[in-house]
């Protein structure tokens, strides 16, 4: 089986190695080093590193070819050998190369075994028991995750770092769910979503520091402001679709940021706004000592003060806000306007032919999506206590959009998984130091390869009917 194809496979692996060599020679092969004040920079040659990397790439590519013609066991064996070599105390030029070799071997083995896993999974799901389990899992995974989120602050490992991360992830889950209305349901590609987040954040920052309004009073106002901006953005882009819409929304996001940056009298410009009050619990503040005329939560509840209390409170606020976003979206999907969003994504011409007003439909999607970003923005300002235009750059929009796309457009659970992955992974990879973003990129590529339509690509019908045996009845 291998015989006649061997030359072609070796050639393919060789070509891949050649490309890798051309790319890698400058990235891996040379390193500039400071050789002292007189001569300045010199070169360090690291061809041994490059050589090992190229061998890994050659063997890996060859293994993939083997797997693709059905020789999966040899490919897995090859991967195992690579992993073993990497893990062995063999003398390699650098410690990282051990990791690289192991990773290459493991990836090769996974890729070779993947079709089996896929097939086994498909067969398992196809059996009656498997199908029931699948349905059960689809139904309960959300509940399980919610349960976990609810008890997280009480769990033993929930230290300050974990809670901070939890708040961060939930903020992005909420933003993802909000953007999901615009991008996932209505199909309007919005690259400037962070603008509404900024509007909400500045609404709270300005109203609280200058007019003394509290978090709970500003929250609905911030949502309204952001929704208004959503409509403002919506009007000029009503006739645009796809790429053109994306470009205009991108521009809109930048305009908001630049206005905030340059309107110094109003927004304090690049210096940002500080000492923003945090949210209160029935008027009580989270602090060790209360300002005049107020009481602290610890005093009110008669419990000892703990700096974690504020964080836990913030955590539950964002959890509730995110859940509200989710429930609202689910409810909307079952209503005519939500259904119209989805129909609009599918086919605008057909929508018009059915009497749907595309203008109103798009504007409601923009407005409601923006409103939730406004809520999240207010929360962000209250949590950080300091905001500046730097928090609202394009990269934030890109991350939120990546969460929606990676989760599978329109999938609510997918957004949660993607947010955990995109926000959580870079944090967990922090131990990897400089290789953090490399690992992150690798994770992204793996998702693209194995789940090209997003983590959860399946769309649940908004209304499921029990199959009726006789046609025409009910």
């Amino acid at each position, binding site marked *: 089986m291998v015989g006649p194809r061997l030359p072609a496979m070796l050639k393919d692996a060789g070509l891949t190695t050649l490309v890798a060599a051309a790319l890698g020679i400058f990235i891996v092969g040379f390193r500039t080093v400071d050789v002292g004040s007189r001569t300045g920079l010199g070169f360090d040659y690291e061809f041994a590193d490059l050589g090992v990397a190229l061998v890994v790439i050659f063997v890996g590519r060859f293994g993939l070819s083997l797997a693709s013609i059905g020789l999966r066991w040899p490919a897995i064996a090859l991967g195992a050998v690579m992993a073993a070599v990497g893990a062995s105390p063999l003398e390699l030029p650098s410690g990282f190369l051990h990791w690289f070799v192991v990773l290459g071997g493991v990836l090769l083995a996974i890729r070779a075994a993947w079709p089996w896993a896929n097939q086994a999974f498909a067969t398992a799901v196809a059996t009656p028991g498997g199908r029931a389990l699948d349905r059960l899992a689809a139904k309960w995974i959300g509940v399980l995750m919610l349960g976990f989120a609810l008890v997280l602050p009480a769990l033993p490992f929930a230290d300050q770092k974990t809670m901070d991360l939890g708040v961060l992830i939930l903020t992005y889950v909420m933003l993802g769910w909000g953007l999901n209305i615009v991008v996932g349901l209505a199909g309007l590609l919005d690259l400037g979503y962070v603008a509404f987040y900024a509007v909400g954040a500045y609404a709270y920052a300005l109203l609280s520091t200058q007019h003394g309004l509290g978090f709970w009073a500003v929250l609905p106002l911030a949502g309204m402001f952001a929704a208004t901006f959503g409509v403002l953005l919506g009007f000029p882009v009503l006739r645009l679709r796809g790429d053109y819409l994306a470009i205009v929304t991108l521009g809109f996001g930048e305009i908001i940021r630049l206005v905030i940056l340059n309107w110094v009298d109003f927004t304090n410009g690049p210096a940002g706004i500080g000492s923003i009050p945090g949210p209160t619990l029935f008027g009580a503040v989270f602090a060790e000592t209360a300002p005049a005329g107020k009481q602290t939560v610890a005093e009110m509840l008669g419990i000892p003060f703990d700096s974690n209390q504020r964080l836990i409170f913030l955590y539950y606020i964002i959890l509730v806000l995110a859940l509200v976003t989710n429930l609202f979206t689910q409810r909307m999907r079952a209503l005519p306007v939500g*259904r*119209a969003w989805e129909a609009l994504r599918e086919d605008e011409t*057909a929508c018009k*032919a*059915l009497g749907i007003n595309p203008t109103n439909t798009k504007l409601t999607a923009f407005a409601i999506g923006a409103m939730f970003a406004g809520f999240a923005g207010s929360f962000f300002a209250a949590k950080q206590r300091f905001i500046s235009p730097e928090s609202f750059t394009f990269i934030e929009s890109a991350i939120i959009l990546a969460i929606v796309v990676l989760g599978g457009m329109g999938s609510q659970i997918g957004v949660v998984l993607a947010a955990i992955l995109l926000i959580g992974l870079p944090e967990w990879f922090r131990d990897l130091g400089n290789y953090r973003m490399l690992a992150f990129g690798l994770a992204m590529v793996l998702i693209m390869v194995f789940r090209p339509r997003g983590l959860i690509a399946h769309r649940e019908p908004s209304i499921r*009917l029990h199959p009726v045996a006789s*046609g025409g009845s009910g």
Partner: protein
Amino acid sequence: MPDPMLAIAGVETFYGAIQALHGVDLDVGRGEIVTLIGANGAGKSTLLMTICGNPRARAGSIRLDGEDISGLPTHEIVRRGVAQVPEGRRIFARMSVFENLQMGATLGNPANFQGDLERVFAMFPRLAERRDQRGGTLSGGEQQMLAIGRALMSRPRLLLLDEPSLGLAPLIVRQIFEAIGRIAREEGVTIFLVEQNAFHALRLADRGYVLANGRVRLSGSGSDLLANAEVRAAYLEGGHA
């Protein structure tokens, strides 16, 4: 004809600088099946789209029961009881059959929904069998049935059909045309049918118009046009389904 439901007079439509319709006059009476036939590029679909307000007529009038609708946006025209089965069907591929039909009932009274659904399922039993299936996974004929069923869900007075036979097998074409005839007879819906399949369309229709280069060239009863030498030469020779 006394009091036509749809009266089109002197309609001119442009795509940019290019004139597609050069003053079209056409009437559709209440309860009639009227067909518009013509070659590719004659302007048939353009006329149907112009009735729906997209693109708008630059000159002339389009009256629905006496009211000029030529300046209204599409969704407002639809609200006045005009349903459209667009060219290429344009069903919502990712939505189920049931959800597609629900979208069709967007404008309708929710109280009528169940009854209308049953009527559509009775007319197209295949749709009832596939009610939870995604629209995109249906066959071409089933998609056409769904497109027609979806249009009927709004209880239209006037149904506009754009090439319902496009790309369908002869047997399916016959079923579709049979269904269109039943919609007119049993439901009392007025039908304006744009078709390239002149033979089937003229056999079904009470009256027909022949459009060529953006102008009405001939008109008459379906059977007269079927017998007309010019029509036969231009649109019917060379085999028909």
